[in-house]
């Protein structure tokens, strides 16, 4: 898994690539990276899953932990371009009712502005 961060319109965008699974965890997790951004005062986070091939429950846990951390600090964490299957899992687990999920990055960014 490779994660790179960039900033656009006051939103920190994490571009995630590869597979997010428990077995591939390196020293730095997604949650840690989000927390690092939150520590620097950033409050708007967008996770871009465009190049994610696979995500397991650990990965979902990372997303949710990141969401909670952001939310607890009054920030917003949104998600863009997740796969159909992951979207279905989010629906089945009712996470679509909690998380804000967008089809593409631009629409997601616009939503931050509206907020």
């Amino acid at each position: 898994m490779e994660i790179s961060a960039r900033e656009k319109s006051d939103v920190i965008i994490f571009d995630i690539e590869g597979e997010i699974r428990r077995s591939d965890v390196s020293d730095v997790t997604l949650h840690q990276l989000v927390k690092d951004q939150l520590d620097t005062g950033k409050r708007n986070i967008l996770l871009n899953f465009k190049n994610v091939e696979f995500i397991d429950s650990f990965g979902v846990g990372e997303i949710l932990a990141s969401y909670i951390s952001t939310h607890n600090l009054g920030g917003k964490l949104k998600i863009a371009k997740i796969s159909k299957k992951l979207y279905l899992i989010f629906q089945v687990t009712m996470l679509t009712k909690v998380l804000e999920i967008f089809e593409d990055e631009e629409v997601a960014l616009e939503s931050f502005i509206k907020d």
Partner: protein
Amino acid sequence: MAKSPVQKFLSKFFDVRSGETSTALLMFFYFFLITSSAYVIKPVKISLYLEWLKPKNLPYAYLLTALVIGFFVTLNSKLLQAMKRQLYISLSLVFFILNLFIFWLLFKQQWAWVSMVYWVWSDIFMITSVTQFWILINDIYNPRQVKRLVGFLVSGGLLGGIEGSLLAAFLARSIGTEKLLLICPLMLFLCLVIVNFVSRLQKVESGEGTEALKKLKKPKITYSKSFQLLRKNRHLMLLCGIVVAGIVVTTLVDFQFNLIIESQYEDQNTRTAFLGTFFTILLIFSYLLHVFSTNRILKNFGIRTALLITPFFLLIGSMAIFLFPLGYMIYWAALIKGTDKSLAHSLSQSVRELLYIPINPEIKYKAKVFIDMFVNKFAKGFGALLILLFFSVLQFTIKQMSFIAIVFIFVWIVLNLLITREYVNIVKRNLEIKWQDADKFIREKIDIDMTKLVFDTLQSKKRSSVLYAMNLFDLLKKEKLSPELKKIISYKSDEVLASSMDSLLELDGETLLPEADDSLEDEALDAQVKEIMSLDVYQQLMNEHIDKVISEESQEAEISKMEAAKVLGMMEPSSSVIHSLSQLLKDESPEVIRYAVESAGNLKSREFVPLLVQHLSQPRTERIASKALVEYGSKITGTLKDYLGDPDEDLRLRKAIPDIIFQIGTQRAANLLTLELRKKSRDVETEIIEALYKMKSKKPQLRFQRKIILSEVISVIKKSYLILIEMHDLMSDEKKVYLAKDLENNLARSLKHIFELLSLIYPHDDIIRAYQNICSGTKESLDYSIELLDNILKREIKEALLPLIDDVPFEDKARRCSKMLKTLEKAELA
């Protein structure tokens, strides 16, 4: 219909019903006269043979009889085919009357061979006339009638025998053995009159009897066909075996008896008088045995025990010969012959006739003629050959001859045991299952849960993509998503935010989100959903979200609550979030409650049971609450029983519980529900009985506490008696007849309950077969049903149940129920 004095008198002793009194009386006298003649002819036969040809030549007489009867059966069959029944019997009687005069003339010549001819002739007479009598009986009455009237008719035969024997005993010394024959033609002439009168009476009284008679005239009977018929029918083969074993034993006993008599009484007329006296005592004993025991044995112990009594006593008797000193052998001879003949005249005869009842009338007729006239005599011939072999060739003593008898008695016992099993099987085969149990049928044909889930999925599609996804996920987990079902569910899938489900359904619909290479298998999906739900972060998020949703009161909140209720049911029961479900179970929205109840059923947590039970009292939630409670299984049966037995609880709620216990369906559930019957709670009695019945239908291996069930059966029978008596009272008042209609329905329901309860402790299918045939079968199937019940039910239950189902006029039914009610109440007090 008012009873005639004769019928009133007869009904005190026998079960003779209106419409059959005249024919029954006439047939009684017919049998009386036939046996009376036979018992005059018989002592003459034995005495003359022993005098002129000596006992050592008896086997030749037995053998010759067997051979001649073989020829006579063929002749008899041809005559039966060619002539009308009434005409055939009339001509036979005329033939025998003429023969009697001829023998009387021949006896004067003192030719020894005449005693041999007379021996054979008298056997032909006895067998032919008795068989003709039973064929007439089978023509006139249906099986159930025969069973009722057999006691009365056999009484006529026994009384006739007593009268004939008395005549022989008193007149032998004064007029001589040979002249005794001249009494018989008069009696046979009276038989001739009766046959013709009965035939006319039958035409007037019932068209059915003559129809049946006509039908029976058609079949052609040949030896080979009759034998083929018997060979194919296990029941008839066993019956033949019984007849052969029984007759071989009787022949051996008869030989031993005659041997001893000849050595004891040397004067012919004294011997004839002794034989007359012996037969008188024998027949009186037989008569008493028959009147006081035959029906009681049949009623109380059934056909199986009745069949075993004769061979059992003969076994004891045959063994007893080794204990008697030579000087007292006349007592042994009288004892064994008395046992054999008295039981043959009473119990064995009645039981053997009963064994013919379940056979198809056409086959019965052919088989009866063949067995009575051919097999019977073959056995006699076989017995004679055994005597020749062991007595004449191997020089066995009288005592040693009993060894052979004992071997055949054992064979007889085994065959009797086999035929009782076969008898019940034949009765069952005569009863069809009329209809399938609807519950069972639906259970087998339709997956109700699956159907419901498909509907829920379709419905949720328009309301919420989350609910839709969750329902679809449920469907997938059940692995029952056929291609057709996938098509139905995906219809108009582009209209909702659910196109992501297309990948689940493997369809080519539009996608909402960009394609990614996540090729998750269904199993992996399930595992992943579970893993996510077990995450602490997920629990934390959901806890907050669901709390928020529950506190909302807007219209949109209803869907969110439905989603929350659904998702809670997918979590682990140990999850801290699931407690929120209690709130959702109390929600005002029926839709929210529906999902909450379903989730409670998935989670099976005890904390939700009281809330679920309360939903049983509401029509709109009763079904889903029931289903959810069923999911809990056996662990909540105790709690459910408490609700069921609490008279302060809502009645609707209580009535719903037996069905839940049925669906739980464990042995413990069956036991608890059975125990609840003991409380005699009339409010929920119907529901409990029906649930128990369904339990047994679904799981035949379940066992029920016999004592409690039997007590309940008696209780429902008593209730049915009261309904029937009340109906009878109402029907006698023209203004209140319409009220009887309601009671008729109640009675039908009670009868159903009786059989449902009986099916728990007796063979389920047999009881249902009997019940269905009683409800909607023909008169014949009613008879067979009663016959089946007669063979499988316990005596007390049988006695109590029969007045309710027996085919008698309603007035008689009410009277019998009233009488039985008093008997049952007395028994309870005692």
